[in-house]
């Protein structure tokens, strides 16, 4: 398997994010949004064929669906009904790993999908609501994808509204330990992070080509644990790029990161 030289940042992120699902075994992989869904699809097609995925509507599939319009003769590979009520049976069993894109992620790994600014009774910006984040965060592993790594997402202080539980001792429920909380990878347009630093501090795992640790720190509103050696995020292989292209025939991935930049700036601009 040869590493590609010509790939986009979106494709680099898909491959990096797919690693989150590699060692999950037989769980439901839920990737919300184009890049997380393609990451889960890639993992199911390559490193972890035991994964389960839905059609994002009501059926569990034995093969992930390509994104977008699929043509009249396409038949998806249903294996069981998986309506929303049954999703919760799965969530509460813990056999799921979701990758989602919240609006804020604080130093504890708590996230916000609900409201920004103002007061809770009269927020400056009302967003989606807590959705399934509270239940996801306490029931099963979760990862995050952030298409624009900046200090508005990774903000100083605590989230305006805490939609998902994180490694915050001040909010730890009685009888629980911080080890019960399982936040896996945080993949952004700059790097890959996790919460594996001292006392669950956010930690730099790898830097995308051409990005420095200083850049990541400057764009993060709280201190990051930076190991002595930080590898470069692995480039996609040609095989991975072929699978991604087949899963995303309408190239929706080109619209997920601003200006669709090249994955390796030194290799030239593909966009």
């Amino acid at each position, binding site marked *: 398997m040869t590493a590609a030289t010509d790939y986009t940042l979106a494709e680099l992120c898909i491959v990096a994010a797919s690693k989150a699902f590699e060692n999950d075994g037989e769980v439901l992989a839920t990737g919300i949004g184009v890049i997380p869904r393609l990451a889960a699809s890639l993992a199911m097609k390559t490193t972890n064929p035991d994964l389960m995925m839905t059609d994002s509507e009501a059926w569990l599939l034995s093969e992930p669906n390509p994104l977008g319009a699929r043509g009249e003769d396409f038949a998806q590979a249903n294996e069981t009904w998986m309506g929303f009520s049954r999703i919760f049976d799965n969530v509460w069993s813990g056999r799921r790993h979701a990758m989602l894109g919240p609006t804020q992620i604080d130093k504890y790994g708590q996230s916000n999908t609900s409201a920004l600014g103002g007061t809770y009774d009269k927020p400056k910006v009302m967003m989606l*609501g807590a959705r399934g984040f*509270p239940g996801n965060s306490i029931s099963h592993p979760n990862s995050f994808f952030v298409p624009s790594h900046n200090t508005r997402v990774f903000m100083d202080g605590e989230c305006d509204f805490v939609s*998902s539980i994180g490694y915050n001792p001040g909010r730890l429920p*009685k009888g629980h330990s911080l080890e019960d909380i399982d936040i896996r990878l945080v993949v952004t347009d700059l790097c890959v992070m996790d919460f594996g630093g001292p006392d669950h501090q956010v930690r730099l795992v790898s830097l995308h080509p051409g990005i420095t640790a200083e850049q990541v720190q400057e764009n993060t509103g709280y201190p990051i644990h930076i190991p002595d050696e930080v590898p470069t995020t692995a480039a996609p292989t040609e095989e991975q790029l072929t699978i991604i292209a087949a899963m995303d025939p309408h190239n929706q991935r080109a619209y997920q990161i601003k200006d669709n930049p090249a994955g390796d700036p030194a290799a030239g601009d593909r966009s």
Partner: protein
Amino acid sequence: MDKRMSAADVVAQLRDGMTIGIGGWGPRRKPMALVREILRSDLKDLTIVSYGGADVGMLCAAGKVKKVVFAFVSLDFIPLEPYFRQARQSGAIEVMEVDEGMMLLGLRAAAWGLPFIPTEVGLGTDIVTRNPDIKVIDSPYDDKEWVAMPALKLDVSLIHVDRADARGVCQIAGPDHYMDDWYARAADKTFVSCDELVETEFFRDPAQARLVHWERAATTGVVHIPGGAHPSSCNPLYGFDVPHFKAYAASAKEETGIQGYLDQYLGASEEQYQQNVGGLDAIRSIELPTY
């Protein structure tokens, strides 16, 4: 028992201040014709419990709502419901914000006659700090604390289904019935609009009967309104109306706001509404969405 009635009959049974559950999910299979009949009424101070879409947005914008119990309010392809946003950002409504699964538990508790169902969902989040009505309790069986999700008792539920008979046997043939069975069970009275009214014999076929998700005793009234979910979807009969939702969302940015939207579309009856949106054939020909 013949449970057939009109949308006006349904609204005549509603009262100011009632707690009303609305079935469906976001822009999918919402009882919009019944919602429109509420918009035409003088009802006010309603508490709405919903996996919300334009049902919640329209009722908020029209001043019908005191409180919303929600986990999200979204039109899917338009992620943020424009009028719900306005209502929240102007502080016009009270809220009980819960997790999607907690709402399911609250409906189940109400359906089963329980005061609450214990869950770990919500612990460590602002769901438990922002909701004085949601208590965290000790367990008699372990040393952990648990969220006691209270029963979401509903005075009335409104649901749209594919087809029903006059006795209230309701079929949802689309891929997901969402939590509609729990909405039906959690309410004192459940009123159902249906795209097709069928004879009871229709359900003799086990394949058809298998798509009936609650028994008729949980259905109070049946209103035959073909296309009654528009502009939401009623998969497999029709998809949601993307251009209509875009026009609806755009109206929130106009000075005339919801009044401009209602003046253009609502009409004095569902017949007028359907004329204003291009007729039933146009509704029935809306393509299903691809996810």
